[in-house]
């Protein structure tokens, strides 16, 4: 491996479909935390619910549109169930319940009891559900090279998926922008700052928090579906680390900003690949086995991001002045 390959690999992450999927899921989290101040510590659960909903529906012959509807409906139900007991309580309760619920979904999905439906711990193979989406591709079914990057036109991690993924991300970034700059978004920001003040002004805080939780959850579920198009439905790929990465990249890019989740996701994935490749190039096998490189790069990325959050806590796109206010 030489430097040219390294930069190609890292550069690919800038527009990779997985980057788009995380950006999309983080936009959902931005509705929760950035706008409303909700501490959703189980966003991966929403993603997983969406993936299962879509993949199972399509596998059973329901088609793509129905699959998307099921994915979103499941996220709505999941959000309502999580929000109903917790949104009247202090913020920490939501955090505890979401972290537990996300784990619950994962364990349920990978349990042998559900093997016929969810595929147990092996999950659902891509070939079971990707076909209807990939059949929409206008690109030829072959490897296509654009500049230094080579990808398949249609299958799995494809140029088609890149195009669709980023279009969807753009659409939801636009939605976030529209809503966060509306009177509706203003109520959410008020709730983020002080619930009681918003109550005293006659707004139904519970209903607004529920709306934010559900819409953010639905976007998370769509992020999960997008993720599953370039990977497979694998319960263990949507564990706690995924949630924490989403938080990291949201804070890195800048919470409550329109482009924060997108920039955060790009930087996160590029940095991860860069560190991993550099470790492979410069650290001899005798020091670190190939299998140790992945955890090592995650640790390094984690430390880097920690430093970033310490020295630029408002994130890259956040507003310094806003952050100086600490009460």
């Amino acid at each position, binding site marked *: 491996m030489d430097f040219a390959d390294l930069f190609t690999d890292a550069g690919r992450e800038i527009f990779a479909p997985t980057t788009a999927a995380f950006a999309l899921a983080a936009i959902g989290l931005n509705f929760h935390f950035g706008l409303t101040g909700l501490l959703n510590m189980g966003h991966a659960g929403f993603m997983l619910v969406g993936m299962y909903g879509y993949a199972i529906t399509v596998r059973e012959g329901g088609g793509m549109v129905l699959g998307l509807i099921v994915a979103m409906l499941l996220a709505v139900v999941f959000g309502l169930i999580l929000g109903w007991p917790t949104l009247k309580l202090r913020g920490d309760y939501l955090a505890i319940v979401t972290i537990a619920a996300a784990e619950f979904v994962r364990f349920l999905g990978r349990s042998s009891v559900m093997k016929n439906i969810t595929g147990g711990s092996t999950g659902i193979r891509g070939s079971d559900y990707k076909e209807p989406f990939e059949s929409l591709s206008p690109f030829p079914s072959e490897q296509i090279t654009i500049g230094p990057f080579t990808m398949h036109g249609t299958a799995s991690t494809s140029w088609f998926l890149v195009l669709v993924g980023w279009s969807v991300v753009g659409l939801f970034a636009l939605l976030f922008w529209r*809503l966060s700059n509306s009177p509706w978004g203003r109520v959410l920001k008020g709730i983020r700052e002080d619930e009681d003040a918003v109550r*005293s002004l006659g707004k139904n805080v519970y209903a607004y928090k529920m709306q934010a939780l559900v819409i953010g959850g639905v976007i998370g579920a769509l992020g999960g579906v997008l993720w599953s198009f370039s990977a497979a439905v694998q319960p263990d790929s949507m564990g706690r680390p995924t949630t924490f990465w989403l938080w990291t990249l949201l804070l890195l890019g800048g919470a409550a900003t329109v482009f924060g989740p997108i920039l955060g996701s790009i930087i996160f994935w590029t940095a991860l690949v860069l560190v991993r490749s550099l470790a492979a190039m410069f650290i001899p096998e005798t020091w670190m086995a190939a299998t140790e490189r992945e955890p090592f790069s995650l640790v390094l990325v984690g430390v880097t991001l920690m430093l970033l959050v310490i020295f630029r806590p408002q994130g890259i796109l956040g507003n310094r*002045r806003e952050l100086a206010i600490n009460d």
Partner: protein
Amino acid sequence: MTDKATPAKSGKNPKSSKDPFANVPHEPGAPKMDKIIVADHVKRRFGGLTAVDVAHFEVQRNAITALIGPNGAGKSTFFNLLTGFDRPQEGEWSFNGFSLHSKSPAQVARSGMVRTFQLTKALSRMTVMENMRLGAAQQVGENFFRALFPALWRKQEAEITAKAEELLVRFKLDAKKNDYAGELSGGQRKLLEMARALMSDPEIVMLDEPMAGVNPALTESLLDHIVELKKEGVTVLFVEHDMHMVRRISDWVVVMAEGKIIAEGPPDTVMANAAVQDAYLGSHHDTDLFEER
């Protein structure tokens, strides 16, 4: 002691035949001519402590009523109970004849009864203008689906903004409208909270120590503003420790101590009441607490 004998000094309208308090007895729980709030047997206990124990309480419509009493008397707790932010163990209370018993704070506010807090609740990471806009009631764009279509709410937003600008000028915050509320001083936050409460055109405003920390010059202009509100038909109920302010603007004073209402009366005589003197001063009757500043 003080110059209570000269009524004109208080600067209020002289008592006329139109005075709604002319025939109101000077006693706790006195019935009013036109009541906007009525509370009965409202009791709130915190463990062993009975913070509020109000047998009967009425507020006269379109008047300025002061609720005073020593620290810990239960004034703020009573405010919380009336506005739905806290629930009493027992009691019944109503606004405009409608029971507020199991109403949420938001429902209470929407029905026209808006309050401010003793510990200011400015929305720090929102601008002063956004704070103000949030105060407006019945906004079309606060509905999720309609929020997506600015054409539906842009006009209302402009009206709300114009109204907010007007209020900000009155509260001397117009120069700060694009600053974050968290960048305001303590007194300015109090002002913002009060102005924000007025954005919804409430029927009654309940202010918990509105002038604490506001400089004297501005206090004067705000007092004028509160009197102005009354002329516009708004009812004002406020908690205040500053006796000067109480004397200057209130039509009626209700005194609380240890959770109970111990006296009611017009501002220039209620302080002479022995029970009030006791509550405030204990045995130190020789101290002159109520002299005009």
